[in-house]
């Protein structure tokens, strides 16, 4: 539709605001990840002359019992968490997409079976299942990624299955079938494109969960090896020193993790808002 465009108002509009917020968060997270991933390991080498120092200008987050700089370790840990979170929630979302579409398009028994699997997975306490899978697949980063992706796909799968069922009953799907198109053609052409926004929103919203579980599992000792600079390990090590009043060992890494999780969650919510047609014109 052609429109006569009247002069834009001075006040920035809501959609632009959401866009700016998304880009900004994305840039912060990417920068954090790159800085952490490319960090020189010498920056958090043990230095026994600098043990258990409270925050100073030189060590903004203080140092730990081996004299390692906590700021550098936190950044490194966050980037590791983000890598695991992204990989695991990406894998979870892909599983969800496949299962959701197959469940909704396939035979009735298949749908029942997949639904049963979803219920089963959701029925077992998350952490227990996660620990079992992580141990069974050999701990470490691989174990964590497999564990998290195998326990986090159910929520998205359910949403996608529901959407597919709804779209499948639309008139244009029937029309397309009666114009001689095959089930597969209809699925790829008409149904899959509707799922893409759900897929991305689900992926981003699953991201913080994945990170929390990664840290939680590592904290409990079922995750990464103890020499890795992971947030879970940092927190678990700090437990011994908290009673001695060394608050910075837990506070800064914990707060940094919380901030990253909240940022990603905000990114997901903003994406949802921008992609949701009901609020798009406001």
């Amino acid at each position: 539709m052609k429109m006569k465009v009247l002069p834009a108002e001075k006040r920035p509009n809501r959609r632009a605001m959401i866009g700016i917020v998304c880009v900004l968060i994305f840039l912060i997270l990417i920068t954090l990840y790159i800085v952490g991933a490319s960090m020189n390991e010498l920056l958090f080498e043990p230095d026994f002359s600098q043990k258990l120092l409270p925050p100073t200008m030189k060590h903004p987050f203080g140092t730990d019992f081996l004299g390692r700089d906590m700021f550098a370790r936190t950044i490194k840990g966050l980037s590791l968490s983000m890598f695991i979170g992204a990989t695991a929630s990406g894998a979870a979302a892909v599983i969800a997409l496949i299962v959701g579409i197959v469940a909704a398009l396939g035979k009735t028994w298949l749908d029942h079976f997949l639904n049963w699997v979803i219920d089963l997975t959701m029925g077992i306490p998350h952490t227990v299942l996660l620990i079992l899978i992580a141990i069974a697949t050999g701990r470490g980063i691989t174990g964590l990624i497999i564990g998290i992706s195998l326990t986090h796909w159910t929520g998205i799968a359910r949403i996608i299955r529901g959407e597919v069922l709804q779209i499948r009953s639309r008139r244009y799907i029937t029309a397309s079938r009666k114009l001689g198109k095959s089930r597969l053609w209809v699925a790829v052409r008409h149904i899959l494109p509707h799922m893409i926004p759900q897929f991305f929103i689900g992926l981003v919203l699953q991201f913080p969960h994945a990170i929390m579980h990664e840290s939680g599992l590592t904290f409990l000792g079922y995750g990464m090896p103890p020499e890795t600079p992971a947030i879970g390990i940092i927190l678990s090590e700090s437990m011994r020193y908290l009673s001695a009043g060394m608050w910075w060992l837990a506070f800064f890494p914990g707060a940094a993790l919380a901030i990253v999780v909240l940022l990603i969650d905000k990114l997901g919510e903003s994406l949802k808002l921008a992609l949701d047609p009901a609020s798009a014109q406001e």
Partner: protein
Amino acid sequence: MLIEAKNIKFGYSKSKPVINGVNFAADEGERVALVGPSGCGKSTLSQILAGCLNPQSGEVLFENKPLPRKGFCPAQLIYQHPEQAINPRLRLNATLREAWTPDAVFLDEIGIAPEWLNRYPAELSGGELQRFCVARALAPQTRFIIADEMSTMLDVITQAQIWELMLRQIERRGLGLLVVTHSTELAARVCSRIVRFESLTRQGRSTAV
């Protein structure tokens, strides 16, 4: 007979059929109007005739053979709400080409402006979208058209426009037509035979116009 429905029964639950024991037949080049109170099953019957619903019992014959379940259905349904019959996420060009690729002459006759092809459904009015549904249903393989309250949601000028261009195509190609409508005036204008839905459950009696 071009299309024939024999002893059709359909319902969403086994105990309460929406329609039961319905017979209907139409010949090539015939234009039949189906009238009756709302909720009597006219729309259900049109969906069964177009193969969009499968009857619980009874059969639909097309040229004395069962209506094909797979592939292009020779009986095409045009529905009351065009915006529901078109995928909102595809450009109209793609929607049209799902059926066939009409030439410029056909598009002109059906009243589709070339620039509409690159638009999304939300950018066009109901009357404009309904032209796409008509064009899609008029694919070369189509032999019978079912129009279920096709023009009810349109204003009278658009209604007259769409019927004029559709009747021109139907006449030229000798297609069969079933019009489901609540308007007796429209039925009298468009059709050669008016059938009351109630009469279909007994022997298909009908009144000529």
